[in-house]
């Protein structure tokens, strides 16, 4: 169990009063999660880092608009989601809004030593790449970020039923890719 001397809501209150150091401490607690979420959405490390900086800057500027400091995480990821899709709109030609491939991890760097075999990471990356962007985002928010369905609905601005539908369709696709059914002999 991790005991934190100062909880996030306290840091948020201090940051609202102009305490930049408190906000930097808050960033240090969330930057890895936000960066990895954006990395898995946009598929590029440099873009993910730039977007992460934009996210935290925008969050700082709008911190006073956060009604309930206890809801900081979904609020922050809502900003990250908007930033990611805003960058897609800027980069992509008109009509093409969300990339269907180009998932992060396509270019796994040589200096990263994965805890799992490299083949497994590639298999997961390939399987995630086969999903639609909204399904993939649902998987990222649930499996990797551990959000509840209500929080996901808040981040994605859609009903819980839609979130569940996207996630469960994605799980079915991933299951086919990553855990194919055992072939049964025909007698």
């Amino acid at each position, binding site marked *: 169990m991790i005991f934190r001397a100062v909880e996030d809501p306290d840091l948020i209150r201090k940051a*609202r009063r102009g305490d930049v150091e408190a906000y930097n401490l808050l960033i240090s607690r969330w930057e890895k999660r936000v960066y990895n979420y954006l990395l898995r959405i946009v598929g590029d490390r440099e873009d993910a880092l730039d977007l992460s900086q934009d996210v935290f*800057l925008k969050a700082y500027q709008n911190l006073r608009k956060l009604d309930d400091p206890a809801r900081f995480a979904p609020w922050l990821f809502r900003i990250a989601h908007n930033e990611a899709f805003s960058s897609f709109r800027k980069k992509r030609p008109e009509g093409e809004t969300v990339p269907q491939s180009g998932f992060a991890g396509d270019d796994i760097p040589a200096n990263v030593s994965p805890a799992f075999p490299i083949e497994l990471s590639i298999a997961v990356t390939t399987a995630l790449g086969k999903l639609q962007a909204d399904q993939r985002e649902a998987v990222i928010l649930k499996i990797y970020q551990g959000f509840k369905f209500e929080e996901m609905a808040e981040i994605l601005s859609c009903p819980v039923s839609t979130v569940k539908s996207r996630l469960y369709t994605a799980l079915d696709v991933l299951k086919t890719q990553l855990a194919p059914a055992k072939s049964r002999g025909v007698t």
Partner: protein
Amino acid sequence: MSCSPFDLRDYLLDELAEKERRQVNQHVRSCGGCHEELERLRITHTTLLALREEEVPQRIGFVSDKVFEPSPARRVWQAFWGSSAKLGFASAAMLSAALVFFTFFRQAPASAVPADTSRIEAQVAARVGAAVEKAVAESETRQAGKTAALLAAAEQRFEGQRQADRLDMLNVEQRLAVLQKRYNVRENMVARYEPPEEMK
């Protein structure tokens, strides 16, 4: 296709209540198809978690620059407007101060009557008198007109009645005259009557 009493994906993602989880556990132990389906979902979930999070290549942070920081006065101002409790307390304090001020420092109402009050009163009385007179005159005129109209109507009505009575009288006189004439004729006839010989 799973025949589990609850969605196995809900089970996998820990979205079921304890009682529901127990039911799924019991079902999976006896159903080979659902057991395999749950195993596949578990493998999928575990495999997905093989993709570990990466470290941020560069720390994100903001530099505290005095140029961009709000001034102490502005911080106090922002903190004041940002706190509804402080704002409420300040409002209550201002209201209390206003009440105290008006209780102790309010000027007594002026007792001395201004010098030109009598003149104003005379003017007002004159205006009121003129207005009353005018109103009375108008009212009298209206009443006189109404009375005259009522009298004329009554007179007309009585005149009509009188005419009708006079006509009735004339009729009666004429009928009386006719009766008188008939009577006279009958009297003459009676006077001249001579009974026949055989009746004598």
